[in-house]
């Protein structure tokens, strides 16, 4: 059940039946989807010699009638309008249109109307409407998804488009996998209910013919959960490789932007972290920081050994061997430099922001109990100069989530201290968090302290002192 080969297959099928030199035209979202799974050299092998976005003003460019155009777009009304403009003044010999989701009939009619010169050879729906980052992990890259936290009474216009995008993305995943799932959603969340109901309507009523696949033995399950039920996990500092890079530097579509950091070599300013193309990353994606450091050191030693052995040329044979292995050598060199740069940047940040201490306190807030000790720890870290603003905010939020009801006075003290330290984080932020995801809003037993049995168990555990860096495990597995 891997997602990346699915999208690769779709793109292969798009390009293989069309002979001759081709141009691939994408929209800003499908560019991300395609770049994550397909590389430029793969495209060149398929004779696609130009990639453009559909926004480029078509009127100002000369016509290249020796190329055939392959359009891969999302079926939004924007794209249909831009396509109309393209079709009325076609620059290419033929047009093959592929849409990443279900087209509506009026859209087809509009396109048919604007195709006066009959350049369109085919229109197909290829359901690749998601960004497959890892083999078992995809994202829809919705940037304003905080909108679902506003109360549904208000019902902003962005909410409908957010739901639509989510439903479209989910539908395309299941169409690509050729399954129709059973849908379950979290009862207490309105957004989850809405998305689940719209998805179910799409799959079982509106397009039931399209979704009518052969029933397999273990049918799939679609579980729609609201993040507000577990607000603690995203607030913690992460210590596994991929999560840490995303937390400290930020990964977007498997690309990491290192431009803002000093002493990064020129060719490593923007790097690619992809489990498919990079073996070292695939092995070490989920390793914690300590093991990762050792593995990187081992990789560097191996590489130094390799480069030293290739330096002494005994005969023409050795030289010939070196020249023939040079591309491999260069690739390994680039890979080693990339990982070394990333790990060194991250360890510098850990040092600067004292993340070890901060993370220990965070883990204690998340797992152990003991309100007074926690209060002490949080206050001392708030006073510490080298802790960054965002970490202070996180600590106060975690404390507030845990000890919301226990001692409001101390909570207010912490709020004031936070506001005095970091001017941009007003205490209203933490209160908003409590309103959205406080004890009343959560359904599950996040901290394991709700029923009597758990309280007893916690008291017994509190008598033993056990320091571990990552004892927090995510609630989904509970």
């Amino acid at each position, binding site marked *: 059940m891997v997602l990346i080969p*699915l999208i690769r297959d779709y793109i292969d099928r798009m390009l293989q039946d069309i002979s001759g030199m081709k141009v691939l035209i994408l929209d800003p979202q499908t560019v*991300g989807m395609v770049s994550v799974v397909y*590389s*430029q050299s793969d495209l060149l092998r398929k004779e696609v*010699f130009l990639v453009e976005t559909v926004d*480029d003003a078509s009127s100002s460019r000369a016509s*290249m009638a020796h190329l055939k155009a392959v359009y891969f777009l999302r079926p939004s009304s924007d794209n249909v309008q831009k396509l109309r403009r393209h079709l009325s003044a076609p620059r290419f010999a033929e047009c093959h249109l592929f849409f990443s989701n279900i087209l509506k009939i009026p859209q087809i009619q509009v396109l048919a*109307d604007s195709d006066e010169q009959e350049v369109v050879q085919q229109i197909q729906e*290829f359901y690749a409407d998601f960004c497959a980052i890892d083999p078992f992990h995809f994202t829809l890259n919705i940037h304003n998804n905080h909108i679902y936290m506003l109360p549904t009474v208000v019902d902003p216009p962005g909410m409908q488009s957010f739901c639509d995008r989510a439903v479209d993305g989910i539908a395309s995943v299941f169409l690509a996998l050729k399954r129709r799932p059973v849908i379950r959603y979290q009862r207490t969340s309105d957004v989850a209910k809405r998305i689940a109901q719209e998805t179910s309507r799409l799959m079982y009523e509106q397009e039931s013919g399209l979704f009518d696949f052969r029933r397999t033995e273990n049918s799939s399950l679609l579980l729609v959960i609201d993040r507000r039920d577990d607000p603690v996990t995203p607030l913690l500092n992460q210590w596994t490789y991929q999560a840490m890079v995303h937390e400290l530097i930020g990964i977007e579509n498997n690309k990491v932007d290192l431009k803002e950091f000093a002493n990064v070599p020129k060719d490593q300013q923007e790097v690619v972290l992809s489990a498919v193309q990079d073996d070292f990353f695939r092995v070490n994606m989920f390793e914690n920081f300590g093991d990762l450091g050792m593995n990187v050191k081992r990789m560097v030693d191996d590489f130094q050994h390799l480069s030293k052995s290739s330096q002494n040329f005994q005969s023409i044979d050795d030289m010939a061997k070196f*020249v023939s292995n040079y591309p491999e050598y260069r690739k390994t060199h680039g890979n080693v430099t990339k990982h070394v740069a990333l790990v060194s940047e991250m360890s510098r940040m850990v040092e600067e922001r004292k993340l070890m201490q901060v993370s220990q306190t965070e883990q204690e807030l998340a797992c152990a109990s003991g309100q007074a000790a926690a209060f002490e720890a949080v206050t001392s870290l708030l006073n510490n100069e080298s802790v960054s603003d965002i970490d202070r905010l996180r600590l106060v939020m975690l404390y507030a989530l845990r000890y919301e009801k226990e001692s409001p006075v101390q909570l207010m003290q912490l709020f004031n201290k936070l506001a005095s330290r970091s001017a941009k984080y007003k205490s209203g932020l933490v209160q908003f968090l409590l309103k959205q995801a406080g004890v009343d809003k959560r359904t599950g037993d996040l901290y394991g302290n709700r029923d009597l049995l758990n309280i007893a168990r916690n008291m017994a555990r509190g008598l033993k002192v056990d320091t571990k860096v990552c004892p927090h495990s995510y609630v989904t597995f509970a």
Partner: protein
Amino acid sequence: MATRNRTPLFRKYRDALRHVRAPAGAPSASSSSSSPGGGPAVVEMASLLRPDRNYAPLSTDDPSASSRGAATVGLPPAWVDVSEEISANMQRAKTKMAELAKAHAKALMPSFGDGRDDQRAIEILTHEITDLLKRSEKKLQKLSMKDSSEDSNVRKNVQRSLATDLQTLSMEFRKKQSTYLKQLRQQKEGQDGVDLEMNMNGSKSTFELEDDEFEDVGFTEVQMSKLKKSEAFTREREREIEQVAQSVNELAQIMKDLSVLVIDQGTIVDRIDYNVQNVAASVEEGYKQLQKAERTQKKGGMVMCATVLVILIFILIILLVLKKILF
């Protein structure tokens, strides 16, 4: 994976709309929406179309046919021919390499003959292949020098893909040559002993046929001829090995040049979105530069001088004509 083909539906709408757009009587849009002959589907579609669109009737020599002709595959620019030549060359090199592999295998098999024909055939083939690869490389370099601006991206990408193919071909060729070299050297060490044996046997048989009177002199002569033959043989082998080594070096040079053009897989340069962004950025930059250049050119003194000179020329011509008339 599921897909759905919407082409038949699209074609149906397109044909229907074409008929709506240009029936023989040439009604305008408003009347077509009210005409009863269209049927409900056509009426529905006509209402979708913009009301101000003017549907001109298709005349017999319709201009749309010529524009449709332009929509068929037009004449590609000249550099496409060059790229097709390069790929044809590489195809030829591939077939020749298959032949070369067969010739290598044949030459390495132990044979009683001199094997000189095989060697020559191998030499010729090697030369041809190196020639083809060198020519392809030169043409590839030429491809980048031409300065047509419009489809420079397409040209760059074509160049990159050809460079990758060329590099893999050269590497294959070099590997084949080096294995042949190695096996040749192994054989030389073993074969020299065997060859000397054969030489001795051959000369001994001729010796037995000769008269006994020449025994003493003949013996030394036999030794001398033996030595000479083995020397000549060794020299020939050395020459061959040198040639093969030389072509290896040439190919290494080609590979070094090509490695500049080829993309490294897995790096940021290999990402489609990075290239699309950069293209957009550089096109914008280029546009800005062009605008700036235009402005400076207009403002510049050059235009002023040129206009002044032209005016002067006119005035002088008029004076000349006047002079002719008056005198």
